[in-house]
């Protein structure tokens, strides 16, 4: 008698394996977050967030890094948002397929796949050295801006595409020009989607290390101008952990970093959902 597994049994086995692997993936995620939180939450305090960093990070808090992260990220967003949103508007509203469309989306797709260390190399040679901006908030911000442009382009593109065509027709039939229509109908309607892109960009910028460490530097002082070198949270955490300066401080910094990332993703997710529920 030959033993043969029937298609039903096969299906059950396959299902169980898929379920198991998916669960493992989810567990890994929760484990990473949980593990960091478990060791880090206890170290968090208002003092930690508002105190200067002392003794290379063995003592004190992370105020300089919080400020550094904030400024570098804001800088990046201010540069990248108009460029990203503008590109997406052009792609959707002004090109109808064609060569220009292909060139622009190819650029965005390729740029999205460039690893952060390459951005780091580029930012270092171009902004820090050639433009002589030094290790600074500006150099870091510009480098991150280039890095997050594709994120903003892609999300905005989807959001703008989701605006019903009829809205544009109404605007035109009421005598609105193309620019009126874009500014008063298309962009306001797609705003939640655009914000999602911007927020995801913030998330990428905050978590980035390789691209900022060679452009913003790693100075622990409180930044005083756009030309100050600064050490972002992610970089600070990297240095704490890799050089084994202080494990408790490393966990605490990682906890702050993850809380920011969770918050960013949560907000982006909620915004996107509200938007999609309306127009898809």
């Amino acid at each position, binding site marked *: 008698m030959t033993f043969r597994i029937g298609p039903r049994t096969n299906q059950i086995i396959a299902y169980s394996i898929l379920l198991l692997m998916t669960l493992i993936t989810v567990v890994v995620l929760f484990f990473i977050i949980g593990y960091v939180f478990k060791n880090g939450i206890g170290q968090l305090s208002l003092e930690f967030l508002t105190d200067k960093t002392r003794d290379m990070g063995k003592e004190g808090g992370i105020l300089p890094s919080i400020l550094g992260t904030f400024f570098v990220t804001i800088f990046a967003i201010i540069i990248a948002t108009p460029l990203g949103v*503008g590109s997406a508007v*052009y792609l959707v509203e002004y090109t109808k397929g064609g060569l220009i469309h292909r060139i622009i989306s190819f650029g965005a797709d*390729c740029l999205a796949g460039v690893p952060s260390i390459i951005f780091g190399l580029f930012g270092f040679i171009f902004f820090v050295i050639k433009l002589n901006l030094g290790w600074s908030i500006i150099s870091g911000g510009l480098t991150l801006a280039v890095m997050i442009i594709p994120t903003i382009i892609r999300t905005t593109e989807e959001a703008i595409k989701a605006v019903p065509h009829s809205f544009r027709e109404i605007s035109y039939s009421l005598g609105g020009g193309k620019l009126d229509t874009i500014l008063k109908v298309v962009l306001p309607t797609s705003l939640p989607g655009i914000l999602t892109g911007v927020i995801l960009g913030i998330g990428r910028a905050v978590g*980035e290390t390789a691209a900022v460490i060679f452009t913003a530097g790693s100075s622990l002082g409180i930044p005083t101008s756009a030309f100050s070198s600064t050490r972002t949270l992610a970089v600070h955490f990297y240095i704490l*952990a890799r050089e084994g300066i202080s494990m408790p401080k490393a966990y605490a910094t990682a906890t702050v970093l993850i809380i920011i990332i969770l918050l960013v993703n949560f907000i982006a997710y909620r915004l996107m959902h509200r938007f999609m529920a309306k127009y898809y």
Partner: protein
Amino acid sequence: MKDKIAEKLLLFIAFSAILSLLLITFFIFQQGIPLIFKVGLSNFFSTHWAPTRGNFGILSMIIGSLMVTAGALVVGIPFGLACAIFLAEFSSPPIQKTLKPIIELLAGIPSVVYGFIGIVILVPFIREHFGGPGFSVLAASIILGIMILPTIVSISYDALLAVPNTYREGSYAVGATKWQTVVMLLLPAARSGIVAGIILGMGRAIGETMAVIMIAGNALKIPHSMLDSVRTLTSTLALELGYATGDHRAALFACGSFLFLIIILLNIIAIKITGRK
């Protein structure tokens, strides 16, 4: 009039991405390529890296990068595909709605956090249970595998969803089970999207830097086993850029040029496969 100006301005802005890409290409190549010509290909592709003494061989790093990337794919592909198939074909909409953002969240976690988890958990675990220093190809492969999961999942998932429902219905109509439908019909139909996802995942793995530096050990030799320490192209860049000058810095950019070329190639292949617009 207003419209014409706006269009010109937007066209200009729209070139920002491709322009950035060109700038990046230009500066990295301009800094790196001359050195390759100066020292010759045989020096550049040798295994001897001592840039302060005129040896610019990046072969052992290339092999290192390939090893951890291959390892990452071994971990990432099965788990990534499993998640994608489970999400797209075996879960109800509410489960999809919860699981998808959770898996996407994996992509949001910073590389340094992965590296850290590697240091505090994976490396000691490997050292105790398998021997060796712990900082190893194996550790890097596992962590990178997790890191590229979201890329593989989300692109494969989209590819599966893009298969028209009539295929599924046709298959169920002739009595196939869900799993048979997946294996015989959906995976082949979604093949190109899945391959593109894997290629992009590969690009991420080759390009990942911080996590790898933290857990791969970075020893400058060709690893002989999964438990050996390994140095990748990216680690070399990040470890040495801070202090390198002269030819040494140029060598790092040469190394970066090589890495960049590979990544762009992978991107182009993935874009061609998915045939985006």
